[in-house]
Structures are given as structure tokens and as C-alpha cells.
């Protein structure tokens, strides 16, 4: 059995405010094996940041037992701190210091020798493409550069477990891709990554395992493929000009159902894995019967479907 970088059972947290008790985490269990990318996926307010804050010793949990990097979170917070690195949602750089000074500050706080600190800072500036900006105050950096510096600072001291709280929120597509590349390289070097994101594509691209968090509860967990299997498969959407054509098509094909989300009831959903051969066959059948669809689209399941389906079901229950 592989060692777990994070093992949490029954994690609970609630806040008290004017409107009474607000439960943020309601019994969350997590098991993250070492050397993998684990993604916590959920909409704003699901409890992702709270989870990261608890696991990184920033705030205490109200209940549950947690082991992070082999140390008990409640009893040995300093040992946990020694093993982790955190890049939060909000830029955690000193904007008045230069990029290089920020890295040297981290090296000093990680108690590296002056020589090792300088070497590490130079290496990270190089790796994160910040050499030209090294002597400029971090406050003058663009969003993408600040995020890169932020992550570089987290890497000083070579943490074994890194928390990335929505690392690409607010970044342009290009910066997002370069951040993904960095994350892949990190995990290739044996580091464990705990990633939160509200982008399904990001979790799909990066994560070995994904947990869906909604209203403080995990509603599903598994690999991206496992999660996609949880919901009905792909289909082809065919929209017709009139009701007659739709009925004829249904008769010819012998399968499919009318899409309830189309108010005109003119769209037919036909189950299909979406490959070229089956599409050709479908169109040939319709052609032979002289039916011309007005519009066709192929739909393969993605994590969006999983997420919307699962969170939708939950809302049905609570209603």
C-alpha cells in the first residue's frame, strides 16, 4: 500500500455569524497518495479554500482527524508546516520587495545558508522565467508573473506536499497552460499536489484523482474517467424543422428520445459514442428515408455533465 500524503476523516468546520451557525465542511474524508495530483473541485463557496486552510494549519477544524505528511495536524502543526508549501488564492508575495528579495526572504525563513539560498533563488528565477524582472518590485509584476513568483516562493525549501488553491483563477489561457506545465513537472519529481479549482478542464487535465465538493460534502470521488462513467453516455442531438420530420426520424432510427430541454420539442437525442462510423451510419439511415436534420451536434460526456448532474440531483433531494 502506498503512503498517504493526506489522510483525513470526518473533517468538520462551521462558522457562527449573525444568521446563526453556518456549516462549511460537513464530514469530509480525504485520502491522497504520495506523488499524485489530487484535485478538489467545486463551485465558489463549496468549502475548497476552507479545506486548504485547515490542511495547511491556517485555521483549526471543529472535528475529524487529519494526518498531513505523516504528522498529526492538531498535535504537530509545526512538523506539518515544515513539510508543506502553500500557494493561496490571493497573491502571497511582498509587493514592496523585488522578486529576488522575495525568494531570498523565503530561503532565510527556510533556514538555508546564504550560499544555498542564493543558488536556489537564481535557479527558481531561471525556471519560472523571471530573470529579467528579478530586480523589480513584485508589485509591478503582471498577474501571471506574480502567480509564478508566488509558486517559486512556495518551492524554496523543496516541500514534499504542495497546496495550490485555485492557482489559475484570473489567469489568461497562456499563463494557465504554463502553470499546468509547471504542476506536471513538479509531480514528475515526486511531489504531492493538492489542487483546488473551479475549472473542470483543469482537474481533467492535471489530476490523478478528483473529488467533487458541494455545500461542504464530497458528492463523488474518483479518476476523471470513473466520474464520467457515473452519468449517461454521449449522444447526438438532431434538431428538425418540424414535428413530422422528428416523428419520421424516430421511426427510421428506432431509438432516441425527445430532448425535454427544447421548448419546441423538435430536438431528438440519439445515444451514440460519437465516432465517425456511427455518425455516418446515422446520417445514411436518415438520408435513405429522405429526412434532412436542420442541425446536428455531437455530445460526449465531460466533467461538466458529471458535476451538473450530481449537484442537480442533490438539489432535487433537498427541495
Amino acid at each position, binding site marked *: 500500500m502506498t503512503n498517504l500524503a493526506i489522510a483525513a476523516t470526518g473533517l468538520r468546520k462551521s462558522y457562527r455569524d449573525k444568521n446563526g451557525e453556518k456549516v462549511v465542511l460537513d464530514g469530509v474524508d480525504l485520502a491522497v497518495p504520495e506523488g499524485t495530483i489530487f484535485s478538489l473541485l467545486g463551485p465558489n463557496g463549496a468549502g475548497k479554500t476552507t479545506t486548504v486552510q485547515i490542511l495547511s*494549519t*491556517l485555521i483549526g477544524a471543529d472535528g475529524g482527524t487529519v494526518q498531513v505528511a505523516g504528522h498529526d495536524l492538531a498535535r504537530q502543526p509545526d512538523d506539518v508546516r515544515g513539510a508543506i508549501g502553500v500557494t*493561496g488564492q*490571493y497573491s502571497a508575495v511582498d*509587493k514592496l520587495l523585488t522578486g529576488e528579495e522575495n525568494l531570498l526572504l523565503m530561503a532565510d525563513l527556510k533556514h538555508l545558508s546564504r550560499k544555498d539560498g542564493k543558488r536556489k533563488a537564481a535557479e527558481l528565477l531561471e525556471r519560472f522565467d523571471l530573470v529579467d524582472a528579478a530586480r523589480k518590485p513584485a508589485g509591478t509584476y503582471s498577474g501571471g508573473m506574480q502567480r509564478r513568483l508566488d509558486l517559486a516562493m512556495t518551492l524554496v525549501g523543496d516541500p514534499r506536499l504542495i497546496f495550490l488553491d485555485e492557482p489559475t483563477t484570473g489567469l489568461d489561457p497562456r499563463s494557465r497552460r504554463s502553470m499546468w506545465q509547471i504542476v506536471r513537472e513538479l509531480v514528475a519529481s515526486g511531489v504531492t499536489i493538492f489542487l483546488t479549482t473551479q475549472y473542470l478542464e483543469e482537474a481533467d487535465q492535471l489530476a490523478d484523482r478528483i473529488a467533487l465538493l458541494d455545500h461542504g460534502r464530497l458528492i463523488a470521488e474518483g479518476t476523471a474517467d470513473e466520474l464520467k462513467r457515473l452519468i449517461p453516455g454521449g449522444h447526438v442531438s438532431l434538431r428538425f424543422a418540424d414535428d413530422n420530420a422528428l416523428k419520421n426520424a424516430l421511426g427510421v432510427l428506432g431509438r432516441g428520445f425527445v430532448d425535454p430541454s427544447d421548448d419546441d420539442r423538435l430536438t431528438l437525442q440519439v445515444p451514440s459514442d460519437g465516432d465517425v462510423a456511427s455518425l455516418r451510419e446515422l446520417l445514411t439511415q436518415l438520408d435513405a428515408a429522405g429526412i434532412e436534420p436542420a442541425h446536428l451536434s455531437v455530445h460526449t460526456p465531460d466533467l461538466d455533465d458529471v458535476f451538473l448532474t450530481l449537484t442537480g440531483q442533490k438539489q432535487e433531494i433537498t427541495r
Partner: protein
Amino acid sequence: MSTLTLAMRDNSTMVRRQLKRLLRYPSMTVQLVATPVIILIVFVYVFGGTLGEGLGGGGRDAYVNYVVPGILLMAVATAATGTAVMVATDMTEGIIARFRTMRISRASVLTGHVVGSVIQQLLGMAAVIGIAFALGFRPNATAIEWLAATALLTLFVAAITWLAVALGMKSPTPEAASNAPMPLILLPFLGSGFVPTDSMPTVLRWFAEYQPFTPVMETLRGLLMGTPIGNSGAIATAWCTGIALVSYLWAKNTFNKA
């Protein structure tokens, strides 16, 4: 390395961070010197002639010598506002959350602010005293007395700065932090900073004589100008130590809880 040497290293790292920040943000330091200098000039040239006569003769020249300790303490109170704002701003930034997730001495974040501020203020005060000399300030202190005055000022600055750090941390926003230390600026006026307390009405005089700024100002005046000190020195030291200790614990506790 032992825990203690590691904590010392964290402290010196944080002090260096703070000094660099102060250098990058010089408008705060300029204001720190400019405000007391303007008050000094106004008091010496506008009120000084008349107030000096009220001190028992000597006019403007006598008043410069009288008012310098009050101006110095006002400078400290003004600087407290800057420190509180800087701490409150710092707390809202992600870098503090980063420090909290690192295995470092937690108090070092605050110590950095305090030591940085104390160094900045002592340099600022040296500039204010220099300008006071240009305006006719003529202390008769010996080297030992200057040293004692510097030590007391340092202790006072440290105490008020720890208080400012605690107030800055308790403030929900930097705007609120700029208001919290405001009453401190009034204390030199409601004490022996600008006029002797015996000239005040009873209730005010009672407050002026027992508030912490008065013994500090009386001791400084005694050391620099040779006026009688009495037990002011002991009372001043006790007040400063007390304020420093309570504020330190308050600030540290707030930091750990937040």
C-alpha cells in the same frame, strides 16, 4: 541549530524585510519627520514668545528648550498611526498567510515590524533634534545624560510601537487602524508637553500629572535641560515597561488567534 537561534534568525530576517520595505516606501518616513518639525516651528515661532514669558521669562529661546520633549513624544504618537496602518495592511495581504503556514517563529513577524519601526523612529527623532538645534535648542546634558535620554526614548518608542502593532492587528481595515492610535497624539498636549501642568484647571491637571506621557517628558526634560526629575524616571520606566509587556502579549495573542 537550537530553537532559540532559529527564532533569532527569523527575527533578524523579518527586521531586514521591514527595513527594506521602509526604504521602498519613504513617504511614511518623510511624514514622520515633517509632522513634528511643522508643529515645532508653529509652537516656537507662533506661540513660543508668549508661552516662554509664562514659563518665568526667557521668551522664545526658553520655550524651544521646554517644548522639545513634548514634540519628540508627539512624533512617536504620530508614527504609531503609521505603524498601525502598516500592520493592518500587512495582515490583509497573502504574505502573512504564507508566513503562518511556515515553520518559523510566529512572533518574528511582529518583532520585525516593531524593531524596524523603532530604528526608523530613532533616526527620525535625530533629525527632529537636529532641526530643534537650528531653532535655538540648547540642552546642557552630559554624554551620560544623552545616553540615558536615548535609552528612555528607545524604551518609550518600543512600548508605543508594540501598542500600535496590537491596535493595527485588532483593526478590521487599514482605515480603522489609522484612527485607533489617534488619542495618543493628544497626550503630549494633555500633559506637560507644551505647558507646565500647574497652569491647568484641577481635573485636567490631575489627569495630566498621572498619565504616562508626563513622567517620560519630565524625565527627558530633566536629563536634557537639568530640571528636577524626582521620581519621574522610575514612574516613566514602569509605565513604558508595563505598556510594552501588555501590548506585546496582546499583539502576540491576536496574531495567534487570527
